[in-house]
């Protein structure tokens, strides 16, 4: 079972994504900010991290850097309201970029594309 870590500060979205991904038979853990996410990342060997950018305590850009410092082989999807980060070099380390929308299909397609 492939393992996904969801880092997102909006609890409702977190719950929704977790449910949808679990339905697709993924193992899912959640965190509501970068620091909490990083702690969980260190305990489990995740295949994919889905990362929001604007979060309290530790934002997505900082978290992305910290994750890549530890493990380069993990897949990362950035899922944010800010389209403006898409072409930004700060997010170049991610494997995919999603602009937050109600389309769960888009998210699932990206996830399947990266980890199967």
């Amino acid at each position: 079972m492939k393992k996904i870590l969801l880092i997102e500060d909006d609890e409702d979205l977190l719950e929704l994504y977790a449910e949808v991904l679990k339905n697709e038979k993924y193992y899912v853990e959640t965190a509501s900010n970068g620091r909490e996410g990083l702690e969980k990342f260190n305990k489990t060997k995740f295949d994919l991290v889905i990362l929001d950018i604007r979060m309290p305590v530790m934002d997505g850009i900082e978290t992305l850097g910290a994750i890549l410092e530890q493990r380069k082989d993990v897949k990362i999807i950035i899922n944010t309201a800010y389209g403006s980060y898409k072409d930004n070099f700060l997010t170049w380390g991610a494997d995919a970029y999603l602009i937050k929308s109600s389309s769960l299909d888009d998210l699932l397609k990206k996830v399947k594309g990266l980890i199967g």
Partner: protein
Amino acid sequence: MDISFEKLWKISKELQLSLSLDESLCKILTALTAGDGFAFNRAIIFLKEDTRLIPKVWIGPKTIDEAYKVWKEISSQPHALEDLLSKCSRREYLKSLPTISIELNINDFNPDFLNNGPTKIDKSDLVPKTLRSVLEYLPFVLVPLKTESELLGLIIADNMFNKKAITDIDIKHLELYAALASNVIERANLFEEVKKKEKALEESYRKLQEAQKKVISLEKMAATGELSSTFAHELRNPVAIIGGYAENIYRNAEFPDSLKSKMEIILKTVNRMEFIIQNLSDYIRIPQPQKNFVTINEILNRSLENLQIEITKKNISIEKNIQDIGKIYADPLLIEQVFTNILRNSIDAIDRNGLIYINVYRKETKITVEFIDNGKGMTDEVMNTLFTPFHSGKREGLGLGLAVSKKIILLHNGKIDIKSKLGSGTTVSILFPVAEEVKDEKDLTH
């Protein structure tokens, strides 16, 4: 030719009336040549620029034949001096007046002639050669025009055709007349100068106003843009939550049909909200186009798919007429957005059972994509603000669709053109350069 004091007074009053230089010069010479004025056969006026004397206006016949013709006309329908002078206020008349092409220099003349009053010249060696060849007649009277300190120009007048003598009394009257004419010219010069400065002032004021308007509108755009972008981002999360859960429920639960269609409305509305949010944030920053060689038809089909629900609902027929025009070099996602925007406008303009033609054709190095609808069309007023951000002709619109579309098309070196007729429909044409034309650009970027 004994001009009465009363006549001179009348002429002086007439001359005071004109402010423009051309009109003044015309009047000065007309009074000199009119039968009930000074009655010279012909007269020409030169104005001084530095040391040059530039010929301005010539009044009077140029040949003896013309002279007889003119005199015949005048004697059959005598003109009062006032009538003749009033002609000078007509622009077309001023334009029709001849001049000559020789240019004189003040050094061509004996300084005494220019410093003193009017002089009768009857010896050819006193006259510059160029002038002699134009006048071909002696004697003439040379009338310097001057202020207290400066020479303004000179008038030359003669009686070549009726050979009437120039008397001492003529010279005396001309002395008075020269003072008057000089005064009028000086005043007209000052007036022209003031007018020129006023015009320059007006022009710079207009430019200033224009610049100000631009700054204000840019600031307004930036401020509204920033605000709307913030709103857009703030709205993305809640909309994603509503839509995401709705989709999740819709997929996993069993509904009676009556609820199913209501659920679909929620989903459709969320999609619409996301479209608005997308437009709001896109307005601020359209991403750098990721260009590729793409087929217009494929992009069109995707745009039509996006709008399928609305098209079916309104029972709109789409008629495509697509020539095989090869590919364009463009960002397919951005162009899809433009096509969708334009088609959505057409759909909104149609009540029911409408028709949208989509024509794609190539003409020389340009590819045209045409959207023609038979919707309600637009008023000129709406047309004028079509590309202005945050101006919408629709009740629910944001007024960003076309502003964004125009920006995107510009990023593709294209052009967007809209024609509309109230009551009969709208045609939107988008012009793209053909792919071969932009190959070089691709080579550079790869």
